[in-house]
């Protein structure tokens, strides 16, 4: 399978010199100070440009950009419900496909980009997403992962990391907060054998935008999982928002990689990782953790990193991995 590789042969990278000036998601929305999610979504929209058709799940990004009669969207945008974003996107794609084939609308090259939070993706929207990926619709799905249900007030999701305190996984005398490990959504998306999967962080904006551009360039479904800091929910300073997005990569907690036609490629080899504690200590959602708890997280992160390297090696038999 080389669907993505073929489509990306002449890929023109976004660089500091040609960053798109277009702002399909305009200023004036109602995001919190330091919101890493809307920053990530803005980068997504810039990378796609004015040919974007945005399909939104219910969530923070929906409510802060569309309080009727105001909208922050300069491109066609549709919101229906929480769990069905991928299904709505598949309908938009099917409808356009039929109308273009029947000559009723012209092929304007529009790109369908669905987005949802981690709850709308890894929990309630999982079935609709899996169906849409399996059916092979030509669309890009972006998960804006802020690791809990922030819009409803910081409740845990299956994407909340181990040890994080949320309003439904509070730390207490008998609990360290979230007691389960974060669901690996990118791996689940990759298991659908779709052409393109990537992880991204807004602290690495060119990497993020290039991945989104690749995702919309490849035919068929693409999935981009974006780490999206939420200072409000993570109990960190708004000015530390991007720092968390940087540290999560620098500690190997959230590795940046692509899965191109099933081939794992590291976007950023973190040779000298910082201790996970550096990342945890600037967020009060982790403040109850004791040194032995942090050691548990460190061990898990080390294991996951080794596993990722093994996947890179296994899917790139000829390439050197170090």
């Amino acid at each position, binding site marked *: 399978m080389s669907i993505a590789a073929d489509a990306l042969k002449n890929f023109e990278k976004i660089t500091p010199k040609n960053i798109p000036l277009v702002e399909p998601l305009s200023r004036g929305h109602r995001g919190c100070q330091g919101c890493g999610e809307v920053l990530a979504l803005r980068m997504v929209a810039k990378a796609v440009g004015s040919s974007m058709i945005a399909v939104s799940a219910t969530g923070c990004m929906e409510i802060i950009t*569309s309080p*009727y009669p105001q909208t922050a969207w300069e491109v*066609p*945008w549709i919101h229906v*419900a929480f769990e069905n974003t991928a299904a709505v996107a598949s309908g938009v794609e*099917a409808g356009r496909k039929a109308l273009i084939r*029947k000559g009723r609308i012209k092929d*304007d090259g529009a790109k369908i980009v669905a987005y949802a939070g981690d709850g709308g993706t890894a929990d309630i929207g999982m079935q609709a997403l899996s169906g849409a990926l399996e059916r092979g619709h030509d669309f890009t799905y972006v998960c804006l992962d802020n690791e809990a249900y922030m819009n409803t007030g910081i409740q845990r999701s299956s994407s909340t990391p181990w040890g994080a305190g949320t309003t439904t996984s509070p730390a207490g005398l008998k609990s360290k907060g979230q007691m389960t490990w974060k669901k690996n959504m990118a791996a689940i998306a990759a298991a659908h054998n779709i052409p393109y999967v990537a992880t991204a962080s807004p602290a690495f904006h060119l990497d993020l935008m290039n991945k989104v551009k690749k995702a919309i360039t490849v035919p068929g479904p693409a999935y981009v999982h974006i780490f999206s800091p939420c200072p409000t929910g993570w109990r960190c300073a708004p000015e530390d928002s991007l720092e968390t997005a940087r540290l999560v990569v620098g500690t190997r907690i959230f590795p940046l990689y692509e899965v191109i036609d099933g081939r794992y490629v590291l976007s950023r080899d973190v040779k000298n990782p910082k201790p996970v504690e550096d990342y945890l200590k600037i967020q009060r959602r982790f403040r109850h953790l004791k040194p032995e708890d942090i050691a548990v997280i460190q061990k898990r992160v080390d294991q996951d990193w080794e596993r990722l390297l093994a996947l890179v090696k296994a899917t790139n038999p000829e390439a050197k991995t170090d």
Partner: protein
Amino acid sequence: MARRVGLEVSLACAEAAKLANVDVVAAYPITPQTHIVEHLAELVADGHLDAEFVPVESEHSAISACVGSSAAGARTFTSSSSQGLALMHEILFIASAMRLPIVMAVANRALSGPLNIWNDHSDIMAERDIGWVQTFAENGQEVLDLMLHAFKVAEDKRVCLPVIVNMDGFLLTHVIEPLLMPEQAEVDAYLPPYQPQQRLDIAQPISMGMVGMPEVYTEAKKASLEALLGSYDVVKEHWAGFAKQFGRQYKPIESYRSEDAEVLFVTMGSLGETCMTAIDELREAGVKVGSVRIRLWRPFPVDDFLAAIQGAKGLIVMDRALSPGVPAGPVATELRGLLYAKGYHLPVQNFVAGLGGRDVTRADFRMMLDKARKAFAAGGEMTCEMVGVKE
């Protein structure tokens, strides 16, 4: 000229969607709707229908994909039943609020539990308030005709609402009936291609499905309500146009031998045919009985209904669903409320019959009539009885 054919009603329903030249079909299989979507899948696979068939992974995604497809400007069809319709519930309200002209065929079936795949109206009676135009077919020809009419009404710029065509599961969907299949040219003359007023178009960006704060939510609901109430005239107008094009007449309320009737049965769906047969027998025995059948369920045709029951001394309202904890079934509850509001002092006896595929026979109609007449004569209270319960 139309062809006279013998066809399973499910296939006739699918053929209607084909004649309407739908652009997208998104559906998930559920008994007894399966033959409808299977036939559409075949029509697409054989190239007889140029459409995208989206084999979604659930009914929730079926209606969600329909919302997306309709918002993209495509003529969109789906079909479901029972649990599937219930799974769509959340999105049905959104589809009408977003004013998207989706057409859905519902093969009416009992809701679980216990699990039961056979006919009654409990699925659609749980969806009375979704804001869709809803019609009920009595026979195969009506299924075909109401389907074509549904697209015409839904896409009318004065309406822009989704439409459900109800057809009794198995009792209609799985029987072969003689019917007149119109020519494509006739349908094209009646139903031109869909011209959306708005669609997701990068040349003219719009935001659809925005947040409605308390300052605008009430007004948005009022606008949807007005659209639904306003669809009444359009429904009738397009039935008149249908009669002109195809020669078959349809009305919101259908009457049978009601002119001098002292007692009227009120039915919906295929039960109307059994009811008419029972009335013929009763009339031969000298009983002044007739029936009215509700074809247009939403918006409810208040004036047509009141005109149809003029002169009657009592009504027997048939429900094929329960409304647990309420003194009557859903149809009788509504009609009693309507009659009270309009100042009628007309006794309404209510029978809940035909649940989960239980047959309703001519003998049942005679029994119901006997009981109702006794109650009317005694001037007694309006009751609700479940017919044929084994105790």
